Structures are given as C-alpha cells and as structure tokens.
C-alpha cells in the first residue's frame, strides 16, 4: 500500500461531445491529509470528482491513472466499484437539501450508507454520529424529514453518512456553497474532523485554504499551481491564482461623503405576516434614511426580514404601521390607495437576485431596456429605442451586444447588467437591489459592484440587500445589520 490515499497521474477526460474537461492532471493526496482543489466555474472540478467515483457519463474518453489506496479505480469493474463507493471513497455533495431524498427521514438518509451495501446499520450509529457533530437531540431529530432541518445541520448529517465506513478518502464538492459563510466554516471544520483524507473542491480560495494543508489550482482543465496552502496564499505564482485570491478578498472602493438630501426614509415602519394562522412580526419599528448618492447595504441572517425591508422601502408592499417617505412625501396616504404614490413613474427601480427571470425572455433587449423610458411617456420610435438601448449598454461595457438579441442568449452576468441598465435608464431616484450578485461568479459580481457604485456617484440612492458582507462593505457607504426584524 502506498502512502498516498489518492494518486492521480496524467488524467485526461474528454466528454462525448469532444470537450476535453481535464487534461493531463496529476497530483496526490497523502493519507490523513486535506487537499483543496480551487478554480473558477467550469474548470473541471466536478469532472475530477466524478472521474474518481467512476460516475462519468457513458461515452467519456478517460486516460491516465487514478488509484485510491493503491487500488486502480479507473479500470475496476462495476460491481467492485460499487462496493468501493462509500467504503473506500466517501462523497459529500454540494447542496445538503439536494443530497437528501425529501420523502425520507434524515435517519434513512444516514442509514442508507449501510443499506446500499446490504449491511445492517449499528444500533446507535445515527445518534452517535450526529452527537459527535454537535446535533442536539439526535434521536428525535433524525426521524424528521430533511425540510425540517437547517442546511448546516443537514450538511452534518450528510457528513455522518459520507464517513459512515471511515473511507480512506472523502471527496467534497463545494460542500458549503449553499450555506452562509459562518455556517460554512463550521461545517468544514466538522467535515475535516470526521474524515481521514479529504479532497475539498471549491471556487472560494480563501475558505479552502483555511481548511486544507495543500492546494491545487485548476484552470480550464489543467493544474496551474500546487503547493502548501499557506505558501500559495502568501506568494501566488500564477495569474489565475492571483485573480482567484483577489476576487475572494475584494478591495474596498471609493466612498462618497454623506451630505446630500434624503431620498427615502422609513419612519418606525412595521410589518406583520400571517404565518400558519397567527400574525408574526417581520419588521419591527424600522427607521432608516438613505441619502442621494448613497449606497446602504443590509446584511443579516436568513429570514431576518431583509427582503421585506426592501419591499417596504420600494413601495412593493404596504407597511402595517409607520411611514415611508420619498423625497419627503409619504408613499401611502389613504387606506384605500392601491399602489404607492412615487415622485414620478419609475422613480424607484429594482434589481433582483435572479437576472434571468428579471428580463422578459420573449422581448429583445432593446424593448426591455427602454420600457421605463416609454412608460415615462417618451414617444419613441423603434429605431430610437434601439439606439437608446445600444447607448445604454455601451456604458456598462456591453457595447458589443446586439440589442435585438433575447436574454436567453446572454450569460447570467450579462443579463444582470442588462437588468441594471433597465433600472437606471430613466434616471431613478432610488434603486433597490436584493442579492444582486448572489447568482454571479466572482468576476461578474465585482463588475456589478463597481457599476452600482458609479450609479450612486451620479446621485441615485441605492439600497442593497446581500449575504456577501465582505463584498458589500467594499462598495457601500454604510452596512446595516438586521436581526429578527430590527435594523441595527
């Protein structure tokens, strides 16, 4: 038996469509060590995991060598491979909710690690495993269904299942990308604790570096750099590593001074929702002022009321108590008023989390982009609208995109930029953005951040709700924290 848990020698993988997802990849994971694989989206990380598990789709061309504890997994036959999965090679997936069958209990999910190998799970394996990872009251909780668990807890259950047979190596594919940063770190610590050797895959260089001994950096299917985690962090050699490092530690941007008049104000605003029959306060006595030219960020745990605050501020929803003022005038006057009274049409414009659904998939870009202009009363011909749209896209660096295209043919990041162009084309006074960068990769997110900043600098008030506090701090003037409906 060799002293490496996993050894990969000049591995190449070509998908049936001829795309070479991995080429000539070699590295190894020593026994009891943790190795991190980092790289931008689409660089072949998941392909690597699938290759090790022998779960590449039919028709892939694979060359090279993969051995786990000295066993050749690339050429093992189906039955043997199945026996090794779970026992020799553990696997932790990306999304804990996706990993669990929603119809079955968490206990079933964990015990399945034994059942699939026709074994009987030890009597208290589930409780012990969960207790050791800090889940309270495991006996009762285990009989609940996945949707009754939180993501962090469920990730621990998955970890228990993945390491049930103490596999020689555990493969973890972006195990925390679906979790909050705090939760994510906790999960990784527990994961590291529970397994013997670990191969941790992620696009977040900084967080991987905290939990592994060695790092391998991928770019477009190739290894560009490998080495000790700390050394690599402190002196990255390749440009790929450097840009990865940069995007996971965004640099603060320029701030504008807050001396402008207030654009929008919340005065002891409160909101309740009827949940399961009884009313639950979601926003409690919120006060908030946003000035022209100012970006206010709001962070806070999930369910704390961030999105609700944003909807109240932008008139999408009516408060139960308190006032919302735009340029000093209340949005809501009489009790029978059905829509908010804004200073003018399109004075408040939104940017949403999902760029794809925020553009009408049937409309060409020019139509979407200039819709607010038309609604403001601009009598524009088609060709004028196209010109306006093209000019606006030019400003966000999308000048090369033909305005007659439909959103379906754009990338997600491009879509979000188009959405922002639509939001700003009619000179709004306030822009509200709910998680504008959550579905984007780091590069696109940085792009959007600087664009929002530029907007504010031109005089608009901006409210951004986000989980990504680090990034938010880089371009917001103020970052407020919400907890259980209160703004602090």
């Amino acid at each position, binding site marked *: 038996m060799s002293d490496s848990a996993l050894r990969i020698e000049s591995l190449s993988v070509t998908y049936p469509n001829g795309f070479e997802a991995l080429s000539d990849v070699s590295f190894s994971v020593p026994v009891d060590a943790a190795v991190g694989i980092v790289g931008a989206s689409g660089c072949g990380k998941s392909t690597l995991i699938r290759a090790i598990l022998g779960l590449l789709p039919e028709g892939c061309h694979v060359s090279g060598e993969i051995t786990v504890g000295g066993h050749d997994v690339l050429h093992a036959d189906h039955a043997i491979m199945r026996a090794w999965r779970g026992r020799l090679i553990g696997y932790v997936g990306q999304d804990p909710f996706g990993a669990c069958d929603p119809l079955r209990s968490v206990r079933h999910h964990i015990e399945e690690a034994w059942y699939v190998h026709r074994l009987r799970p030890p009597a208290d394996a589930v409780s012990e495993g969960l207790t050791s990872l800090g889940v309270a009251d495991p006996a009762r909780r285990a009989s609940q269904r996945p949707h009754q668990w939180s993501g962090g807890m469920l990730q621990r259950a998955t970890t228990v299942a993945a390491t049930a047979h103490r596999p020689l190596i555990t493969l973890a594919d972006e195990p925390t990308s679906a979790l909050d940063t705090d939760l994510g770190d906790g999960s990784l610590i527990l994961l590291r604790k529970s397994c013997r050797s670990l191969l941790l895959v992620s696009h977040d260089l900084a967080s991987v570096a905290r939990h592994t001994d060695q790092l391998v950096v991928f770019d477009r299917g190739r290894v560009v750099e490998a080495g000790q985690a700390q050394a690599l962090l402190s002196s990255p050699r390749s440009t790929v590593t450097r840009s990865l490092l940069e995007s996971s530690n965004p640099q603060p941007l320029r701030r504008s001074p807050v001396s402008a008049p207030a654009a929008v104000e919340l005065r002891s605003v409160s909101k309740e929702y009827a949940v399961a029959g009884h009313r639950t306060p979601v926003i409690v006595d919120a006060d908030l002022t946003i000035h022209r030219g100012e970006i206010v960020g709001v962070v806070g745990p999930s369910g704390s009321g961030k999105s609700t605050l944003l909807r109240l501020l932008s008139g999408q929803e009516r408060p139960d108590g308190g006032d919302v003022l735009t340029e000093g005038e209340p949005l809501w006057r009489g009790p029978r008023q059905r829509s908010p009274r804004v200073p003018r049409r*399109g004075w408040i414009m*939104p940017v949403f989390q999902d760029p794809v659904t925020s*553009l*009408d*998939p*049937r409309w060409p870009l020019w139509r979407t982009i200039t*819709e*607010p202009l038309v*609604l403001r009363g601009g009598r524009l011909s088609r060709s004028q609208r196209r010109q306006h749209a093209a000019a606006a896209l030019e400003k966000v660096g999308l000048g090369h995109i033909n305005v007659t295209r439909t959103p379906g043919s754009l990338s997600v990041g491009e879509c979000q930029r188009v959405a922002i162009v639509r939001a700003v084309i009619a000179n709004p006074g306030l822009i509200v953005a709910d998680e504008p960068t959550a579905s984007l990769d780091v590069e696109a997110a940085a792009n959007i951040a600087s664009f929002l900043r530029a907007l504010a600098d031109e005089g608009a008030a901006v409210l951004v709700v986000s989980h990504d506090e680090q990034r938010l701090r880089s371009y917001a003037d103020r970052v407020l924290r919400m907890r259980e409906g209160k703004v602090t």
Partner: protein
Amino acid sequence: MAILILALVGGAALLGPLLTGDPDVPNYTNSLVPPDSAHLLGTDEAGRDLLARTLWGARISLGSALLVTAITAVTGLLMGVLSGCAGGVLDTIVSRLIDVLLGLPGLIVTLAIVGLLGPGFLNLTIAMSATGWAVLARLARATSRQTMHLGHVKAARMAGASLGRVALEHVLPAAASGVAVVATLGIGEVVIALAGLSFLGLGAQPPTAEWGTMLADARQTLAYAPWQILGPGTGLVATVLAATMLSEALRDVTSPGAGH
C-alpha cells in the same frame, strides 16, 4: 418531420377535396372494392371512394378539432390571464368556476351537454369547447400568477406600467406559449374524442365523411374488407403524431430560456 406530416395532413384537408369527387355519392355496384388504381384506398360498402372520403373527412375531423382547440385555447387563455392578473374577487370567481369544471369528468359532461342539445356534430363541438377550456385556463392562470411575480413584471410595474399593460405585454405572451403547447397536444385527443362520440351516434351524421364515423362504419365489414381503416386510420395516426411533434416543436420555439 413534424412540418412534413402537418403539411401532408393539412394539404390533404385543404386541397384533397379539390382533386377528388363527391365523397358521399354511393355507387352500389362498386361496393367494397379492394384498393386498386381507380380507388387507391378501395371503396366502402356503399361503393364510395375511400380516398375521397378520407380527404373530405380530414376537413371535418381536423376542422372541428381545430375549432374546438381554438375556442378552448382562446377562452382558457383569456380567462386564465384575467384571473391570474386581476386577482381579488374576479380571480376567486374564475378560479371557483375552473375548479368546478375541472372537478367534472370532461367526457361525461360533454355527453350530458349533447344530451341536452341533442346529437349532432355542431352540438358536439359546442359541448367539447364548453368543457375543454378549464384545464387551459388553469394552466394560463398558474403561468400568469408565476409571471406576475417574476422580476421583469415587477420591474415593469415599478417603472409605472399599468396592470392591463403588464397583462397584455408580459403575461399574455408568457401564458400563451404554454397554452399553445398543451392545446396543440390536445388536437389529437379531440379528434379521437369526436370520433368516439360520433361512434356512439352523437356526432357527425352519415353520410357525412368523418374519420370517426368512417371507422365506425368499417367495423361491420372489417373482417371482410380491412382496407377500410387504411385511410381514416392513417389520418388519425398522422394527426396525433403531428400534434405531438408540433407541440414539442412549439415548446422548443416558445421556451426562450433555452439559452441558459
């Protein structure tokens, strides 16, 4: 492929009758002649040319199926979008109506309506339209409500678009494609249902050439003259296939999210 079949079926329905004689004139000395050069699909018991009857029958079968589909699709779409966009009392009323109609077994209510109006192809078409729109309305309403919560509609509303404008420009097209897909898929079903009800004597009345009644007529002498099912059978299979393919093609064309 779909286009080809469709063109064939549609062309047959439109042009076929011009090429052939009157499908309803009997010629009893020519009864049940197997397919030959004079009668490519043979003749039926009354000595009528089955090719002519198949082609003419296409008009009635397809025509009324298209009519039913069109009526149900338009009604369903409008009701669904209206209810989905307007919300409130209107939505409640329309939804209840849809629920009740969906809670009724369609084919049987069709039977009951025919019972009320009396047998006949027109009555059958009316009955099928009266019951068929609910399922499409529900689909349209669901899509509308979903669309109303999508970013682009919210953005349009915030940019100052009225409810009507949003419904017309954003929601209707979105709902229409789904309705079109499902309604198209239903064309084949409608043809078959019409045929089945005609078999029961509730639809087309002889000697009108209609695929369902042609097959029903054929069954008595099927063992002796099996070629009688050739024409209408091929027509029905082709229609169902074409409807399925068209529906799939429509789905591909109208689902613009394909790029992601």
